[in-house]
């Protein structure tokens, strides 16, 4: 009883940490631009798939992972520079549609550049499970959790301490005022896309040894991450963390105690419930009145 409970908690937290990272990617871009970037899941996919293929080309795992993250970051910045930043007068809705287009494009490109097979990576710190009160946990799960924790702490420091981080927050708060106090908001946009892509790619690298990857894993990850961001309150990094872990746990317990057939349905259910019952999520900001 306790064993299975612990087991579901571990697996829920592990996958939840990945959803939290995807949700964090949504949050960063949403704050900088009001855009919900539906290509966020593709960043995760490109991170995992590039690592797999770079490794097949003979690079050591660590180098392949690092290069994959850099590559994904560049793709994120290009998405901003080639598509989002150019559509200067476009409404937020058109920009969101552009990101959906980008997501379809990246998925198609991944089929061509990579392939349509499922791929896996070896676990970074061995495959031998650890046992804790009867439940088993893979070292890779601990790495996912540690990686997510490090990213959240690092970003917290970045936003709260650094001059650039504060400029991002100022831009999120009031773009025009930020420009007027000297913030280069175009740079902040590119930075946000690059940062979100890097975070997504890191999540992809960390999770691939556990869940496998293929060209089309981004779609479901984006939906779950979006559900997590909505649950936490879109625009709030702390909400992204809580929302991601919550979605992961709901999914794991749902699959464990109800039926694994409905595993993916739980995220959709959460999205619907939030939309109906609390559109601002758990930690959403008050909507600011326009003057």
């Amino acid at each position: 009883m306790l064993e299975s409970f612990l087991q579901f908690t571990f697996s829920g937290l592990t996958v939840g940490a990945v959803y939290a990272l995807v949700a964090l990617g949504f949050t960063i871009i949403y704050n900088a631009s009001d855009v919900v970037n539906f290509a966020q899941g593709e960043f995760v996919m490109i991170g995992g798939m590039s690592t797999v293929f770079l490794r097949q080309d003979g690079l050591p795992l660590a180098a392949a992972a690092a290069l994959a993250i850099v590559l994904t970051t560049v793709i994120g910045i290009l998405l901003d520079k080639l598509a989002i930043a150019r559509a200067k007068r476009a409404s937020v809705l058109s920009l969101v549609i552009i990101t959906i287009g980008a997501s379809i494009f990246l998925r198609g490109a991944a089929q061509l550049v990579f392939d349509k097979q499922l791929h896996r990576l070896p676990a970074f710190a061995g495959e031998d499970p650890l046992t804790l009160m009867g439940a088993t946990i893979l070292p890779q799960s601990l790495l996912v959790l540690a990686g997510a924790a490090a990213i959240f702490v690092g970003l917290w420091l970045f936003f709260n301490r650094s001059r650039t981080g504060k400029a991002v927050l100022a831009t999120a708060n009031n773009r025009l005022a930020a420009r007027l106090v000297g913030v280069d908001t175009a740079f902040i946009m590119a930075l946000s896309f690059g940062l979100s892509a890097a975070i997504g790619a890191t999540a992809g690298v960390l999770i691939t040894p556990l869940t496998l990857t293929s060209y089309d894993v981004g779609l479901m990850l984006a939906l779950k991450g979006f559900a997590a961001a909505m649950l936490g309150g879109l625009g709030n990094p702390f909400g992204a963390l809580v929302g991601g872990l919550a979605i992961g746990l709901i999914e794991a317990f749902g699959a464990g105690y109800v039926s694994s057939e409905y595993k993916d349905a739980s995220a959709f259910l959460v999205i619907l419930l939030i939309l109906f019952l609390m559109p601002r999520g758990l930690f959403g900001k008050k909507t600011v009145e326009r003057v």
Partner: protein
Amino acid sequence: MTALLSVQSLGIRFGAVRAVNDVSFSAKPGEVLSIIGPNGAGKTTLFNMISGVYQPSQGRIRFDGADVTELLPHQLAERGLSRTFQNLQIFHQMTALENVMAGRHLMERRGILSDLFGLSTTRRHNRETKQAAEALLERVGLADIAHREAGGLSYGMLKRLEIARALACLPQLLLLDEPAAGCNPVETEEVEGLIAQIAHEGVGILLVEHDMKMVMRISSHIVVLDHGEKLAEGRPEEVRGNPRVLAAYLGVTEGEEETADALD
């Protein structure tokens, strides 16, 4: 004295509407130059072009000896041009103090590693920024609400908060768009005193303000706009006696009595 800002044949179109057309003037350091005109005359649009928010469709802008027509707002801010907004642009989710500290953004040059690891240079910078921001809040009379969230402050307070934020980057030229609008008479008097003091310190000021008594007292020079065109310019007493100016003002209904009074 040479001009700090000079605007040559400036104009902008929105579709078929010429919101500003062929406007030229120049401003000097330490002087208050007021732009007056009825509602919709193009005053705010002129400010938007000078501060880089809008790209003019015609004419040039020179600031501090360089052509800045194509520069973006953050680049102009870097060169020492600062502004406030008629309809306020505040960081609502920050405190009053944080708003002013954000105004010092440009003056903080330091390394990201020093920031992240809280090194002593960063701590010193943060202390200096905070002290400077506190001094500015004191100056605009908002010292006691420094730690309140800006979203909850009154309109008159926000007007002054925006001035404090605009001053935080130590501008050479300050554009004030209706700084006394929505302020009570006491606050208005304080704002007027503040503007005079800032100009006295050598900052050039472009002022848009509907309170004509204040404009007549404080301005070194006045430019009158109507329907996007420059109708007249000169010293306050010259503008006051200009029949075309009177006609433009009497043509509008809103605030008619007040302006006619003041121009008399």
